[in-house]
């Protein structure tokens, strides 16, 4: 079985045929035409169909040249025609050392096949291609239009995809009743949901020292930011200079931490170092505080981790006691009041209206002072007042 390999140079459409001028048969012409299409796939001639065509045409050409049997080799599964393009031996199109070989493993190959005849036939087949090449030139001018068209198409596709993504995201957010609503309302932490619970955050860390908006010069000594060019200037402060400054400041600024704050005009206690006293102007917020808050109580409040805060609890208990006391008074009044006592009670009210009015005002004033826990204005003043539980007793 004679083997012949078809070698063709790396293909480029050339007006002059790259093959020796030999006569080739029509079958070879068809073979070459389709091989051209195979090597240089265009939009008109996809490579797949070309590869099938070339396979069939090669079979026919071989069978035609090697054997008189017709139709025997057509689409024969036993024949595997291999067409190789020897790109390693690429040569300019004008060179004369072309080799055209057809490799065939067919059993039907005739020992009398003549590859050289093929060469001649192929070359003759090339000449009709010149009009084809010239027609390609004509269409070269329209390539720019095609390029613009393809660019515009790609841009439109990009915009469409982005719009689609944006619409999808919006619809995702606008869909009511999702977990996003919980996040929006502050009921759920956005950075601890689902996959983010493992510490993976969608907000990737951005390196401030490697920001794309900062461009370094080649020598690493220039930096370009926001349209301006900067150069690096090294810091020149040495530890010795730092120590000098520290000594200078220690001489210039001598200061003791104050342990006592006094308003201007107050006298210094005898056992207090005058240097440790800090004088506060009279209109300073610190100076206007008149209350003496229990330090230990304040410290306890700061360290409290659980439970009801002290003041809220105290007010709640005071209110409960007051309500209990009121209920007790009402019960007593219902129990003890009869006609005689009621008259005396009426007389006492009439005889001493002012004292009764004063009694009525005092509990209401204390209640207002005690029932406004969140008001910071009353916090300092009410803290100094006696506990509410004492008020009814005083009355």
């Amino acid at each position: 079985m004679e083997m012949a390999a078809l070698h063709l140079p790396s293909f480029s459409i050339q007006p002059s045929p790259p093959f020796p001028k030999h006569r080739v048969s029509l079958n070879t012409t068809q073979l070459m035409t389709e091989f051209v299409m195979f090597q240089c796939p265009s939009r008109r001639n996809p490579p797949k169909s070309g590869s099938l065509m070339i396979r069939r045409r090669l079979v026919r050409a071989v069978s035609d040249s090697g054997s008189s049997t017709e139709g025997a080799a057509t689409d024969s599964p036993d024949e595997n025609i291999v067409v190789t393009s020897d790109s390693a031996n690429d040569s300019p199109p004008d060179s004369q050392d072309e080799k055209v070989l057809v490799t065939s493993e067919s059993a039907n190959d005739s020992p009398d096949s003549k590859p050289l005849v093929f060469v001649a036939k192929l070359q003759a087949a090339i000449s009709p291609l010149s009009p084809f090449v010239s027609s390609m030139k004509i269409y070269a001018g329209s390539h720019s239009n095609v390029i613009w068209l393809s660019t515009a198409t790609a841009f439109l596709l990009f915009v469409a995809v982005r719009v689609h993504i944006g619409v999808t995201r919006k619809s995702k957010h606008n869909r009511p009743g999702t977990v996003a609503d919980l996040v929006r309302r502050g009921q759920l932490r956005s950075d601890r949901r689902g996959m983010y619970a493992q510490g993976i955050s969608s907000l990737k860390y951005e390196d401030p020292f490697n920001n794309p908006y900062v461009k370094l010069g080649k020598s690493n000594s220039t930096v370009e930011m926001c349209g301006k060019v900067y150069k690096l200037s090294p810091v020149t402060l040495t530890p010795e200079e730092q120590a000098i400054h520290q000594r200078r400041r220690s001489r210039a600024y001598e200061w003791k931490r104050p342990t006592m704050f006094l308003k201007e005009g107050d006298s210094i206690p005898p056992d207090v170092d005058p240097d440790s006293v800090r004088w506060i102007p009279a209109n300073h917020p610190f100076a206007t505080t008149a209350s003496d808050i229990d330090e230990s109580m304040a410290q306890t409040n700061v360290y409290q981790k659980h439970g009801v805060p002290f003041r809220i609890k105290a007010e709640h208990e005071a209110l409960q006691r007051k309500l209990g006391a009121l209920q007790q008074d009402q019960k007593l009044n219902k129990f003890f009041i009869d006609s005689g006592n009621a008259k005396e009670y009426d007389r006492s009210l009439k005889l001493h209206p002012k004292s009764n009015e004063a009694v009525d005002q005092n509990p209401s004033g204390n209640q207002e002072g005690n029932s406004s826990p969140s008001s910071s204005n009353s916090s300092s003043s009410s803290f100094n007042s006696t506990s509410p539980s004492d008020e009814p007793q005083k009355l």
Partner: protein
Amino acid sequence: MLSLKPLPPNHNPSLLHSLTPFTPPFPRTQTLKPSKHASPPSAIQSALQWNRKPELAGETPRVVVITSGKGGVGKTTTTANIGISLARLGFSVVAVDCDVGLRNLDLLLGLENRVNYTLVEVLNGDCRLDQALVRDKRWSNFELLCISKPRSKLPLGFGGKALVWLVDSLKQRPEGSPQFILIDCPAGIDAGFITAITPANEAVLVTTPDITSLRDADRVTGLLECDGIRDIKMIVNRVRTDMIKGEDMMSVLDVQEMLGLALLGAIPEDSEVIRSTNRGYPLVLNKPPTMAGLAFEQAAWRLVEQDSMQAVLVEEEPKRRGLFSFFGG
């Protein structure tokens, strides 16, 4: 302003080592995540640092007071932005607004409508400490505590002690101690300042490149050192490189020469600061980031690692606009 560490002449590129001439005063006892690079724990990648989170240095909680002396230089802005940057890096942060009577930190963070209780209410027993802490919904590891409402008064005498109790209580809380406690100090050097610096272990001094601010900053630094706070770093705010170039403003290096403090950051003048204040949205969360936002992020990074700037940016000749400059080249 960006901080880049220039490679020293004898730098061995095969080694990963820090370029800081100032060694951290505290040993590094905790790291956030193991570094992907095979480097010793104390090494910091030189020149540019990328693809890693900062390694926490020092003992937690790190109590940092942000002060200045002079008002209006950007203490509250610095506290808000550095606090959010730290939270975004994954650290738990509690920011305390110690300005009695003139609180603003809640405004910058956009949390003004959620402040119901303050430290005064905690002291009075009206609420617990965890009820007074306002957790940011954007970053759940960031919490805000205000000292008092505008019309309330903090009792005299134990203002500083209250903050010490506060820090101690935060250390002992069930969900764990915060890694950073930032204290926004009020202006001046009176009782509010003394109260704010009481529990602090380190300080960030915010100043601007003008002589009035520098003089106040120098005094505040002296008082801090008298009080035993030695780890003091400086942030130079509102830097205008164009004025520095025209020699109308002191440069950052000039400021450092006058004060003699390590540089934590140099923040350029940025109009976006005002817009972010209006929105209640800290500057560092802007996308794309602004120059000031980048600078705050870098300052937060250095704060975590107890590092300082090794070089500052000085404006060069203006950029020449080429044909394709609008492409970003």
